[in-house]
């Protein structure tokens, strides 16, 4: 076998069996376990890193294979494009922390450019007009970030209500990804929550949308079922539930060779050190099992 052939085999093998970067969405509460051998990626929530009195970079000295910046206020489904100041600051934090990607949510948080903010993202109406506005804004954002070689990913959100629309969420998302070519930050728990709350098959949803995405990152988290509201709440407060683990396996299988990184989110009821380590190791073990079958 010639050297060229050997290289070709190695290259094919590594791309076929590549395991995504695995890590936590960084919180002060999990900073101390980021040197765990299971972790080689990290996600920074922009609003947490944007501390004006901070002197050192938010990540400190530690290096990771993948660093993602996660934003909350691009509001890509608003009628107006996001403001340059916000984009500049996002990019500055990305550069300071050597991030290779920036992400935000598929929804709107404000009415217009200099208007008011709701504090959290609402889903867009799944209509052609919303699709036009969203794609135009994502194109704008991608062009801005591409100048500094940062890739943009859009996250499917968990929502508690829906506007009247003319297409399904899966159809809307498929078109957004196809029209803009942006990456998909697939929040597996959000798909699960919406499937529980609005009665669709989460496996079909992922299988339907995945072909439209060139690059994918994943979010995993745990919430709870609120009996009073009759809804699953994506609170990031509990361990990942079994149905989400199953959906994660399915996602890894569907997204083979496309998934760059998997980020685990926890924002309340923080576990102890064993809990932090156990869950992230399980995330890696499943990824290795699905992506590198023996």
């Amino acid at each position, binding site marked *: 076998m010639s050297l060229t052939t050997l290289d070709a085999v190695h290259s094919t093998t590594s791309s076929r069996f590549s395991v995504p970067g695995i890590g936590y969405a960084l919180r002060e509460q999990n900073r101390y376990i980021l040197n765990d051998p299971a972790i080689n990626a990290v996600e920074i929530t922009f609003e947490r890193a*944007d*501390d*004006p*009195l*901070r*002197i050192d970079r938010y990540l400190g000295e530690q290096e990771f294979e993948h660093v993602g910046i996660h934003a909350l*206020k691009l509001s890509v*489904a*608003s*009628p107006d494009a996001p*403001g340059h*100041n*916000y984009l500049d600051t996002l990019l500055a934090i990305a550069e300071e922390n050597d991030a290779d990607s920036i992400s935000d949510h598929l929804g*709107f*948080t*404000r*009415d*217009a*450019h*200099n*208007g*008011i*903010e*709701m*504090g*959290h993202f*609402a889903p867009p*109406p799944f*209509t*052609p*007009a*919303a699709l*036009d*506005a969203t794609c135009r804004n994502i194109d704008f954002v991608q062009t801005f970030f591409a100048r500094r070689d940062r890739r943009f990913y859009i996250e499917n959100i968990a*929502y*508690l*209500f*829906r*506007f*009247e*629309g003319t297409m399904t969420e899966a159809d809307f998302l498929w078109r957004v990804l196809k029209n803009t070519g942006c990456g998909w930050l697939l929040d597996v728990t959000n798909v699960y929550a919406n499937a529980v709350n609005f009665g669709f098959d989460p496996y079909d949803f992922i299988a339907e949308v995945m072909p439209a995405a060139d690059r994918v990152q994943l979010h995993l988290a745990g919430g709870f079922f609120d009996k009073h*509201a009759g*809804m699953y709440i994506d609170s990031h407060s509990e361990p990942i539930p079994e149905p989400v683990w199953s959906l994660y396996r399915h996602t890894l299988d569907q997204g083979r060779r496309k998934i760059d990184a998997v980020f685990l989110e926890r924002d309340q009821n923080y576990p102890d050190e064993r809990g932090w380590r156990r869950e992230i190791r399980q995330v890696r073990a499943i990824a290795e099992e699905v992506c590198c079958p023996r």
Partner: protein
Amino acid sequence: MITLAPNMIDYRDQIQRCAQTMALGYAEDVRPFLADDMTVAHVRLFTDGNLDKRIEKVLDQVELLKTAFDKLDDLVSEYIHEVPLAAYDTGCSDGDRFLCWLKLTQVTSPEQQDHISCQLARHEVENVARQNRLGHVRFQELRSLTARLTADLHTNPDLRMHLNPIRTWATFQTHVLLDEEATAPADVLFFANGQQIRTSAFEDSGKDFVETLASHGPFTLTDWKRLDRSTSRSDLIEFCLDAAEMGLVAFG
């Protein structure tokens, strides 16, 4: 002039109406836009959750007021139902808007006004740092070398004094937030010290020192003596050392 397609005009109208009403916690106006199987109760789950989080954040941002206002929670709740969050809210901007709202809508005692001034000044330090991040980082780096250079202040004529660029003044009318030895009213300087914020009340001479350095600095002791002939060199050195100790001045 850009002409919007008719569907985009309708879309803009829908998003503006929904966002503006949901930002203040009023879910009713969203009803005409909801899918058939959705009710206002679903929207209320969303708006209530957002407002609860906003109340928590504002309370965090105006922590100093907790001892000065008996019903701070109620006041914040009233505020968020009246004043929507501004687009691109960053840092403590919502807390600042609450403090301005408080001054405009409530009758406050001089002591309460001092608490408001103190909180606003702390936020202003953060705002100054946000606008001049490079200046903040450079000064703090310079400061890390200052301890080594302090001994040279008497002998090195080229040593320059740099004023911390991340600072702001506030005036306290009462004694409630001042040290025992300070007299009210007092001008208080708030400034960044690493990631912390420090405060110091100054008498007129100290305030003049800071303002001179702010206007003409950075400069050496010799430069300073040219500007201020009335103060002795030893007094200047003593003042510089005190200011360097507290993180207001660095040498380089």
